[in-house]
């Protein structure tokens, strides 16, 4: 490149063509134009061809009657009155249901196993190690088949279900339990529950301040728990027990009535939870080990016992290391839930990319929508985890 400063060139006379800046712009513009043309022409050509072959012909199918049934659904859906669009929401909600419960359970299990692996108790730490190594090194699909075919299917048939206390029945069609029927007065119990939560928060803030001022510690956990359980319970009895149960009855084939939790859901949930917990355990272990030993020693020197040391000193620092990989595991769990298709749980992929795709034949549209949904779920999860991470990140002073 020329090292002559631009001021020495007389601005009016120099041709624009030789101005390196202008030339740069021209080149970049040309490049963008070519790339844009490339993408546009490839896309329009593809769309043209797909339309000609009748592979992609738009989203007109969305409002057409579905005509099939789904057994597990969170919103009303029936073959007679529902559309493919509603089938999409049935699948989406089922995916979100299994993913959200799976995330919560796998976090608890993962933290428990991760901490156990570092425990000084030899048996506990070895058991945690075996768990992690076995679960983490087997393909998830096989584990799902194991839970579904080897654990849940051999349960007795519907006509000789295992009866558990409290009118709960267990058979190879799932767990059938009493279905709560709420009388109008039950609202008061719900209100009491929220009041109790607010009260617990108020108490917690007060006790925190009290501790900062005087150093007195209150048993926050047990008092909050007593509030949240006790208050609604008292209201429940005052309101005259506004809750009845629809008990399962033996029908010709299945138990009728009651609330049924299907084996496909249980198998998927157990599979996803245990599998992801194996990874989370390792993330937690890595996070805790990343906190230097000096921190623990300092806490001990201050007279903190093992429990508070972990809770107040080690975990908060470990969280900074844990959160980013934890996010990845949450995303993986959500995406892995699409393996539901193999064991017949009607998640988004099973219902929408399976049945709907097949009945309509609109493969491209359906697959594109499904991809967009998973992308959205993942981005939203990442967003929240990033916000949480920012709050937990080291604040440099």
């Amino acid at each position, binding site marked *: 490149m020329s090292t002559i400063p631009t001021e020495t060139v007389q601005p009016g006379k120099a041709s624009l063509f030789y101005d390196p800046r202008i030339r740069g712009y021209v080149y970049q513009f040309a490049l963008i134009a070519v790339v844009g043309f490339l993408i546009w022409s490839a896309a329009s050509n593809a769309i043209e*061809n797909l339309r000609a072959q*009748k592979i992609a012909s738009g989203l007109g199918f969305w409002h057409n009657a579905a005509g099939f049934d789904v057994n597990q659904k969170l919103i009303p859906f029936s073959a007679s009155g529902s559309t493919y669009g509603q089938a999409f929401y049935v699948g989406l909600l089922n995916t979100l249901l299994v993913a959200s419960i799976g995330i919560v359970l796998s976090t608890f299990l993962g933290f428990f196993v991760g901490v156990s692996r570092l425990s000084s108790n030899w048996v506990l730490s070895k058991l945690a190690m075996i768990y992690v190594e076995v679960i983490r090194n087997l393909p998830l699909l096989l584990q799902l088949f194991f839970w579904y075919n080897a654990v849940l299917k051999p349960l007795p048939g519907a006509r000789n279900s295992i009866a558990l206390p409290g009118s709960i029945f267990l058979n190879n069609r799932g767990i059938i339990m009493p279905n709560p029927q709420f009388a109008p007065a039950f609202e008061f119990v719900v209100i009491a529950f929220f009041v109790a939560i607010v009260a617990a928060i108020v108490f917690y803030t007060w006790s925190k301040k009290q501790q900062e001022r005087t150093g007195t510690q209150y048993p926050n956990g047990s008092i909050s728990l007593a509030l949240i359980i006790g208050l609604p319970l008292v209201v429940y009895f005052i309101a005259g027990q506004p809750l009845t149960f629809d008990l399962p009855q033996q029908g010709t084939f299945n138990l009728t009535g009651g609330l049924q939790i299907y084996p496909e859901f249980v198998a998927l949930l157990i599979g996803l939870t245990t599998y992801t917990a194996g990874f989370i355990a390792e993330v937690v272990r890595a996070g805790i080990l990343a906190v230097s030993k000096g921190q623990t020693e300092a806490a001990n020197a201050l007279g903190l016992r093992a429990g508070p040391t972990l809770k107040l000193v080690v975990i908060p620092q470990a969280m900074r290391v844990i959160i980013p990989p934890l996010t990845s595991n949450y995303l993986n769990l959500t995406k892995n839930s699409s393996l539901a298709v193999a064991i017949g749980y009607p998640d988004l992929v099973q219902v929408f990319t399976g*049945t709907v795709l097949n009945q309509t*034949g609109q493969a491209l549209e359906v697959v594109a929508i499904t991809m967009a949904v998973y992308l959205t779920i993942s981005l939203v999860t990442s967003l929240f985890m990033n916000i949480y991470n920012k709050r937990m990140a080291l604040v440099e002073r």
Partner: protein
Amino acid sequence: MKKFFAAALVVAATAVGVGGAQAQTGTLAQVKSRGILHCGSGTGLAGFGLPDAQGNWTGIDVDMCRAVAAAIFDDPAKVKFIPLSAKDRFTSLQSGEVDLLSRTTTWTMSRDTSLGLNFAGINYYDGQGFMVRKKLGIDSVLKLAGASICTQQGTTTELNLADYFRANKLKYEVVAFASNTETVKAYESGRCDAFTTDASGLYAERLTLSAPADHIVLPEIISKEPLGPVVRHGDDVWLDIVKWTHFAMLNAEELGVTKANVDEMMKSPNPEIKRLLGTEGKYGEAIGLTNDWAYRIIKHVGNYGEAFERNIGQGSLLKIARGQNALWTKGGLQYAPPIR
């Protein structure tokens, strides 16, 4: 930079160029130049399309493809079978991955029209049935109120099931699986009280159960399931070839021309047989093949009746009666227009 531009332009040109070419030439020309027929078959259904112990595909749907290959190449082995699930079968055909789809596909109006496909005939008249355990002591589908029913998702079966139970105001629980194998496994393990699919499929799948005698197929047939070979819209020559391959096999059965006696029949004075076997007229050339096209089909694959008996009839384990699939002359529905 210049090199990049050149490369980009080449890529752009290719992207624009692809696709146009495929639609231009006909399927027959493509198949001929490729030297092999690409046939979309099922993922394995005894009697209809399943590789045997030696890896040779056999079945009545498979014979449809072999017959087309025999008519074009005089060699029934010039077929590549591409196993397709219920889910990806139509996209494969639409995109040109397969030339012909022959895998127990039900002819419906939406498939025939909005998917851009053409059904070339009906090689098996089927209907949806139910299989249950004998020990349930049930003799009718109407007694299945409240039952769990296993089915394969994405099939017309799933829709008929919903229609039938709705029409009869019966409650039921559907458990749908992506693959047929998983569906049958779920039924066998007791997850469901009944398994539903096309009646032919029920007989075929019953053989795969550990104790076939413990299961019965209920008498009700709840739907019309005309199964047949499928081709793409917009290639009439190819549609004619597939359609008339099927008709040639039917006409051969009607005229008594079999794999064994076809050489002898070449000398037959019967004008209908002469037209079929190409000793009179130029009917083969009219569909872009040679005049001995039907001779080739019968010589290599046999007539419709032979294909039926060998794969799903008395000569097979399935032992399905001809029933609706008998020739029209014997009270069935199989009827072919004349060659003239």
